């Protein structure tokens, strides 16, 4: 039996899609992991229980939340402690937090709760077991948490402007999975329904933490939040460089995520005409996006200018929207027009147009898992590989690595915290221990040494074993065209926040708030269903206040 795939327009070329600047303009979509997870939990009719709530009047103590789906039960053990302001840092090097968490495999008994309440606050320094699936911590937005608690104590609701401007009660500063610090390896959950997709255990943890923050502030304030206000309180996240190298070290995942998104876009662009309901839906989503842009303000001047520009462009687009949607292949027309306006406008439209077409899009999430990449194949010829590089890696061959501007930065792992860092090559020590994220330079060096070579790859690699990794990446890229970031990652022009935004948009993040070129705050699960709203609540793309 053959299954006909939906028609699609050509995919956008990787040389365009995989540029840092475009990756740094991405928005969440209905394929984002948090959306996928909550859709799944809704279809499973999963419900959250809170079997343990041991909190004092100030909100210090611990709680346990349990949720069952796919034949398994998972529990979030949450610990809340007093923290002095001078210890409240988002950096991964912090040693104390307002709250700490473990996602536990099963329902912990009293001994396990005691173990976890002792070790969760220690985070990296704690002792964990294979029952512990995810480790996380979060700090309060002190200003908003205190304000909401105080308002509830007065029997009032919090100031809506403040809720809108901040958007979360707590901000996670790390969410660790996959075997870090002794917790369970991903293999433990790889085959489990609901957690088999990328970062699903981490997304589940974050969503449960968000619900805990709601409960905690209501406990401290002694009142109930209005559900609309509560829904708009997501969970913040502060992310630095640690996340960026992942996209380089996991070319299979990067490809599969991007391929799913680009295939979704190509499918909806092939839609020949829209029903009146679909037109109404796109118009409503366009209005929602405009409201979202209006509510998205950041302190960073350069980024705020980008947002302001996008607001104007979006307003122009909205004015002409109905005419655009009245043409053949209306989605394709819409995306084409947005591409002529700006990159930000095109990426916002590319995310929006997926929303009304869950039937064409949602199944693609199944392909976003890791693939077992084949090993390097030495059976080819050097000439073929050289031609392949010249055809598909021209962007890398064009970089002048003799220019110090193109090698101004280097990636390394800090001895102090074992975390990725970015250094200045001319000013800081450590370049001789550089992490191999200089993919473009590696490819160029490979191409240079191939200039006078012929014969088999096997014989070439015997003479040049240092090129083995680069040869493999070229081969991977042939079958996985979105596997590589098509930019120089060690040049002065590399801004890691572009990589962070790409990855975070796949998580489902919004309200990107850059704090520097290499550190960003975002909000997750804002507008997402509350614990008791999972059934059928999937309409929260680009959250807006009051929705």
């Amino acid at each position, binding site marked *: 039996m053959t299954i006909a795939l939906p028609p699609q327009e050509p995919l956008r070329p990787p040389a365009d899609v995989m540029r840092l600047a475009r990756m740094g303009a991405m928005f969440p979509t209905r394929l984002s992991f948090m959306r996928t997870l909550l859709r799944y939990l809704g279809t499973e009719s999963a419900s959250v229980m809170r079997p343990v709530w041991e909190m004092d009047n100030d909100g210090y103590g611990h709680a346990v939340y349990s949720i069952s789906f796919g034949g398994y039960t998972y529990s979030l053990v949450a610990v809340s402690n007093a923290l002095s302001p001078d210890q409240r840092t988002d950096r991964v090097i912090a040693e104390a937090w307002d709250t700490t968490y473990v996602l536990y495999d099963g329902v912990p008994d009293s001994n396990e709760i005691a173990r976890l309440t002792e070790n969760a606050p220690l985070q990296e320094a704690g002792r964990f077991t294979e029952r512990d699936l995810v480790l996380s911590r979060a700090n309060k937005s002190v200003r908003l948490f205190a304000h909401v608690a105080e308002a509830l104590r007065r029997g009032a609701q919090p100031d809506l402007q403040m809720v809108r401007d901040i958007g979360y009660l707590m901000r996670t500063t790390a969410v660790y999975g996959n075997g870090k610090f002794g917790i369970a390896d991903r293999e433990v959950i790889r085959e489990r329904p609901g957690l088999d997709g990328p970062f699903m255990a981490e997304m589940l943890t974050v969503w449960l933490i968000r619900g805990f923050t709601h409960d905690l502030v209501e406990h401290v304030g002694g009142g109930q939040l209005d559900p609309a206000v509560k829904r708009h309180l997501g969970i913040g996240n502060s992310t630095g460089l640690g996340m960026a190298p992942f996209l380089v070290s996991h070319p299979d995942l990067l490809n599969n995520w991007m391929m799913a998104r680009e295939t979704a876009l190509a499918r909806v662009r092939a839609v020949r005409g829209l029903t009146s309901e679909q037109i109404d839906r796109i118009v409503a989503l366009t209005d929602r996006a405009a409201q979202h842009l209006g509510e998205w303000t950041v302190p960073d001047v350069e980024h705020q200018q980008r947002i302001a520009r996008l607001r104007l462009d979006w307003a122009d687009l909205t004015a002409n929207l109905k005419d655009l949607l009245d043409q053949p292949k209306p989605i394709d027309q819409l995306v084409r027009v947005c591409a002529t306006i700006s990159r930000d406008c095109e990426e916002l439209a590319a995310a929006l147009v997926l929303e009304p077409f869950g039937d064409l899009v949602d199944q693609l999430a199944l392909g976003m898992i890791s693939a077992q990449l084949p090993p390097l194949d030495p059976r080819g010829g050097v000439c073929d590989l050289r031609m392949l590089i010249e055809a598909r890696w021209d962007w890398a061959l064009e970089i002048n690595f003799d220019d110090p501007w193109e090698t101004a930065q280097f990636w390394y792992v800090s001895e102090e915290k074992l975390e990725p860092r970015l250094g200045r090559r001319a000013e800081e020590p450590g370049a001789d221990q550089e992490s191999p994220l200089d993919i473009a330079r590696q490819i160029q060096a490979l191409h240079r040494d191939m200039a006078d070579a012929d014969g088999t790859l096997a014989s070439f690699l015997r003479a040049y074993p240092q090129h083995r990794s*680069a040869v493999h990446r070229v081969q991977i890229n042939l079958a996985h065209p979105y596997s590589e970031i098509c930019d120089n990652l060690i040049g002065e022009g590399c801004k890691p926040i572009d990589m962070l935004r790409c990855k975070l948009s796949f998580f489902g993040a919004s309200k990107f708030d850059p704090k520097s070129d*290499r550190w960003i705050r975002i909000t997750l699960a804002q507008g997402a269903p509350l614990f008791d709203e999972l059934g059928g609540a999937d309409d929260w793309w680009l959250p807006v206040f009051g929705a």
Partner: protein
Amino acid sequence: MLVLKAVRGAGAPLGAAEMLARVVPDLSTAAWHELPTALRGPFPASRPYQEGGIVKFTKARVLTCGVAALDIALSEDVDVHVLQVDAPEITCALARYIEQAFGVTLSRLVITDSTDRSIPVSRGSVPALSTADGIPDTVWRALMEFAAKTYVAASEASRSGGAGAGLTDND
């Protein structure tokens, strides 16, 4: 991930490190014990020679000769001998990985240990080291030492700007 860092720290070619990292979940206890030896540098390019129509690597290092021999065994119609290899169990694990990935049998590949005893590729099909048993302490320490060679000591510049974040976040 630790093995990948350790092999890089040892100075072996990145591609060999990546290949070895792929077979880590399948390594037997004996193979784990070979890792410190396999990671001892230096790692000069492999130099095979031909004898009686056989391509031979003697006193072979798995991360150079072993990987190169597998390339030849897969791509050329010749007998390939990896003799007195420093890490025969790891070599077998890499060979099995290639066999499975490409759906072939490397029947013309011969691997011998330091005593020149032939080791069948299939022999390494013993159970992988269970996570519950843990990596042997001596191996773990050796891997940590090699991995540490890839780490850069902290400086004022790295502390203040390397990660890009601010120092306190009371908001």
